[in-house]
């Protein structure tokens, strides 16, 4: 078992039972997005732009429609006009209007009686394009005079006041951000050492192994159903309804099992196409499954970033001031996570003087989607690299520098609010104490440290818990189970009731069965659905105490709930044998009816999670290849409900970060086409690239959750980018400022250093 430091005061919370959906998932029975079929179902394929930027002059589908078995073709003309804001963005990204904005942008879709036929038909749809100038690099898109991705969409409302950005010269800047506190220049003047650097990260994809897939059915009345792999069935309903101009309540959405999401399945990409095709094909269900290259060309990725950071530090490591100027492109639509990147950039540190400036930039790339702690890894790469460099220059231990400046309860955060109970100091101390830090390093080996942060999200949540007629419990949640959620919810509900883990059945339900739920995103599922489930269970307990009180003829206040049973609270309440949940449930029909509890809320009480990673690498000076020798994740979980799945989040986040640091990137050709749209060329880490990933779960309970839970899903991807860069610097003395740190780049840096 990986190392951890758990002490449990609970019977169930903190244990590691088998997950309830495990059996289905190891036998191949679990049904994921593409595994669902319906009678009379058609299959769809999508026609996509081969150009990065092009006017669509004409779409001719007559040859496709002439094929026997082709039932419908849709283009933008089949969607309503007049949408605005993000609704329009979603519609435009689903299917292009008169301009294709990136390589892979959908322009038409076809439904036919077989998948092969649909693919053949898609090839027969003729699209005439007029190619326009394009731009894909973030700095090039930012530059004055760059080709305008969406003419007229520039917004310089902040900088036009004072910065040298004459209106509409930087055509692709659609949002500017500025915030901070203190006097940054005075802070730099106080420092013994001031350093600045420019850092760049490339776009990466969430890389979930399951491509997007759905089956959609909709009639002429605008009512329909959808089965889809998603992190959030209510978001699918809301966005599809907006894009199609139908009522949200008319659409019933069921989430399948989901083969990974990491933020990339919190929105829509092609789902409205299946519904529109179904409507046009007389209401026959339509299955639409993306290929891997469609996934890489047209869904997900995260933003690419170009970042300037300046930091002032005293000789003893105390930070005096910091400034970040981040530029991020998130594709051909507003919404790069530059705001979140800035918010997280300095969140680990006490900073009297701090300034953040951000630019959200358009480029001819797919619309970016959330990816695990959106923005935070990029910001961390810049900030944690520079802090490391400065600590080394001053001869200070990088962990001590972080401890010296670490935020704690009551400190004002770099982004404004004051922290409540947080665990960064505990995390750093646990890191210092870990044996990995005393392993001696050999030649060309180096050790890198970095810290990361994610605030977590509460979000709109609806949960219901019912007492089942045999005394077990049935829980309905609306957040899909991507990595052990059913197990964690069952543990908390069973703990609350005082019944067995196996006596709780947790169902992820469809949109008709609960009120609105945000997706499993923002590290919120265990936190928010768990908290709502505990509240709901407590409501059931209250009702069960009432039933017992009625039976005993005493006040409900004189009844308490202990170990799964109602009992008189103290000798004055009377002498009755405890009534178990089973006994109450078996008679509930006759004692007042079914017993259920529910909770609908925008969840409050989130607790931020900090983590520190330590990585040992060896760099081959002949090839520039970096090998991960050892990897340690230390992170605050508040309380680990099911520690194995918490470790899994730590390990998975770290490895995604390692991939981002060393290999992964979107490579665009001069023609603006994605050059690496398959897994052979978009290389994610494989088992032979890695060692075991050591984990330490620190538990500083979150006061905002009944079991102290903090969301743990996202923080883990934040430190690896700078930690690996810092380790490479330690190993071979080169400071890599542009990801990925692949062998050619590292080798070039080593050679440049030798020659320079």
């Amino acid at each position: 078992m990986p190392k951890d430091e758990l002490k449990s005061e609970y019977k169930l919370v903190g244990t590691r039972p088998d997950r309830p959906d495990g059996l289905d998932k190891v036998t191949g029975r679990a049904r994921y997005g593409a595994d669902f079929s319906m009678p009379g179902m058609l299959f769809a394929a999508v026609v996509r732009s081969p150009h990065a930027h092009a006017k669509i002059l004409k779409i001719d589908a007559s040859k496709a429609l002439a094929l026997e078995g082709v039932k419908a073709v849709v283009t933008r003309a089949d969607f309503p006009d007049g949408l605005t804001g993000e609704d329009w963005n979603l519609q435009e990204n689903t299917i292009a209007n008169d301009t294709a904005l990136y390589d892979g942008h959908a322009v038409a879709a076809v439904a036919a009686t077989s998948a092969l036929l649909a693919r053949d038909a898609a090839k027969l749809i003729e699209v005439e394009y007029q190619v326009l100038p394009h731009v894909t690099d973030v700095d090039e898109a930012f530059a004055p005079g760059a080709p305008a991705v969406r003419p007229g969409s520039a917004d310089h409302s902040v900088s036009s006041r004072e910065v040298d950005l004459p209106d509409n010269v930087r055509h692709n800047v659609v949002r500017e951000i500025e915030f901070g506190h203190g006097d940054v220049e005075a802070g730099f003047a106080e420092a013994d050492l001031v350093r600045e650097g420019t850092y760049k990260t490339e776009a990466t994809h969430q890389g979930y192994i399951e491509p997007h897939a759905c089956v959609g059915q909709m009639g002429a009345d605008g009512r329909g159903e959808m089965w889809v792999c998603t992190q959030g069935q209510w978001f699918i309903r809301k966005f599809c309804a907006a894009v199609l101009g139908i009522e949200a309540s008319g659409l019933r959405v069921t989430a399948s099992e989901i083969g990974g999401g990491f933020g990339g399945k919190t929105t829509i990409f092609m789902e409205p196409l299946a519904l529109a095709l179904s409507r046009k094909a007389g209401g026959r269900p339509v299955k639409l499954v993306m290929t891997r290259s469609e996934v890489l060309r047209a869904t997900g990725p995260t933003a690419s970033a170009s970042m300037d950071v300046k930091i002032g530090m005293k000789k003893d490591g105390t930070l005096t001031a910091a400034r970040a100027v981040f530029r991020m492109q998130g594709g051909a639509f507003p919404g790069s996570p530059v705001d979140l990147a800035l918010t997280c950039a300095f969140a680990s540190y006490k900073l009297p003087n701090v300034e953040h400036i951000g630019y959200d930039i358009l480029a001819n790339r797919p619309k970016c989607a959330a990816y695990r702690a959106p923005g935070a890894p990029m910001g961390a790469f810049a900030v944690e690299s520079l802090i490391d460099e400065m600590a080394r220059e001053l001869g200070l231990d990088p962990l001590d520098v972080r401890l010296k400046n670490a935020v704690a309860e009551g400190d004002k955060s770099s982004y404004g609010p004051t922290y409540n109970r947080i665990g960064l100091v505990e995390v750093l101390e646990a890191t210092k104490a870990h044996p990995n830090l005393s392993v001696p390093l050999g030649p060309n080996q180096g050790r890198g440290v970095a810290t990361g942060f994610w605030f977590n999200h509460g979000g709109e949540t609806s949960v219901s818990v019912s007492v089942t007629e045999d005394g077990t419990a049935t829980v309905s949640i609306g957040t899909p189970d991507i990595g052990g959620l059913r197990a964690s919810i069952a543990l908390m509900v069973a703990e609350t009731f005082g019944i067995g883990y196996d006596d709780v059945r947790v169902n992820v339900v469809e949109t008709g069965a609960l009120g609105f739920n945000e997706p499993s995103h923002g590290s919120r599922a265990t936190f928010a659905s768990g908290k709502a489930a505990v509240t709901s269970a407590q409501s059931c307990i209250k009702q069960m105490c009432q039933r017992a009180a009625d039976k005993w003829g005493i006040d409900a206040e004189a009844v308490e709930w202990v170990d799964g049973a109602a009992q008189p609270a103290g000798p004055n309440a009377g002498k009755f044998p405890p009534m178990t949940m089973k006994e109450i449930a078996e008679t509930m029909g006759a004692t007042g009816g079914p017993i259920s509890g529910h909770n609908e809320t925008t969840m409050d009480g989130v607790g931020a999670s900090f983590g520190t990673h330590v990585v040992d690498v060896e760099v081959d000076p002949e090839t520039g290849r970096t090998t991960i020798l050892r990897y340690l994740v230390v992170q605050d979980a508040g309380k680990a409900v099911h520690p194995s799945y918490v470790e899994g989040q730590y390990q998975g986040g770290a490895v995604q970060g390692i991939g981002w640091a060393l290999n992964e990137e979107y490579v665009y050709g001069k023609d603006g086409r994605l050059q690496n749209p398959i897994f052979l060329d978009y290389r994610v880490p494989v088992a032979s690239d890695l060692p075991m990933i050591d984990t330490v779960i620190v538990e500083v309970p979150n006061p905002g959750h009944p079991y102290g839970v903090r969301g743990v899903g996202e923080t883990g991807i934040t430190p690896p980018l700078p930690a690996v860069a810092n380790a490479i610097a330690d190993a071979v003395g080169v400071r890599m400022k542009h990801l990925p740190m692949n062998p050619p780049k590292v080798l070039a840096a080593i050679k440049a250093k030798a020659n320079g």
Partner: protein
Amino acid sequence: MTKVHVTTTVNGEEVEFLADPRETLLDCLRDKLDMTGAKEGCGTGDCGACSVTVDGTLVCSCLVLGVEAQGKKVETVEGIADGEELHPLQRKFIEHAALQCGICTPGFLVAAKNLLEKNPDPTETEIRYWLAGNLCRCTGYDKIIRAVQDAAAEMRGAA
């Protein structure tokens, strides 16, 4: 396009289907035989989610044509358990939390079973290289490797 009649054995049962010559074995398993345990993660032989064995050889079923299965013996994730009795690998995957989303799990189980049939006592490095053709984006592989090691030990009677 004329379809081809294919007779093959899947998990010990003789089955037949009509395949378009362009359809892969993965398509045929999933769409003709309703065996959706093998998954398509890439369709280009890069992710291993579609792993099955054909006459004992581990293959990506997305790179094999359905018509090539004629007269062969195909084994899939659906055939790993013996009735109600899970294979040690299946049990250990659950016990070690070696799956998060679980989409990669069928492929890993088929590939790991094939490894342990050839090499009952693999080193960690051997396991990592044998499974290098199976992508998992969720776990970072740590718990998968431990589950395979533990299952191997149990199967050797060393646990």
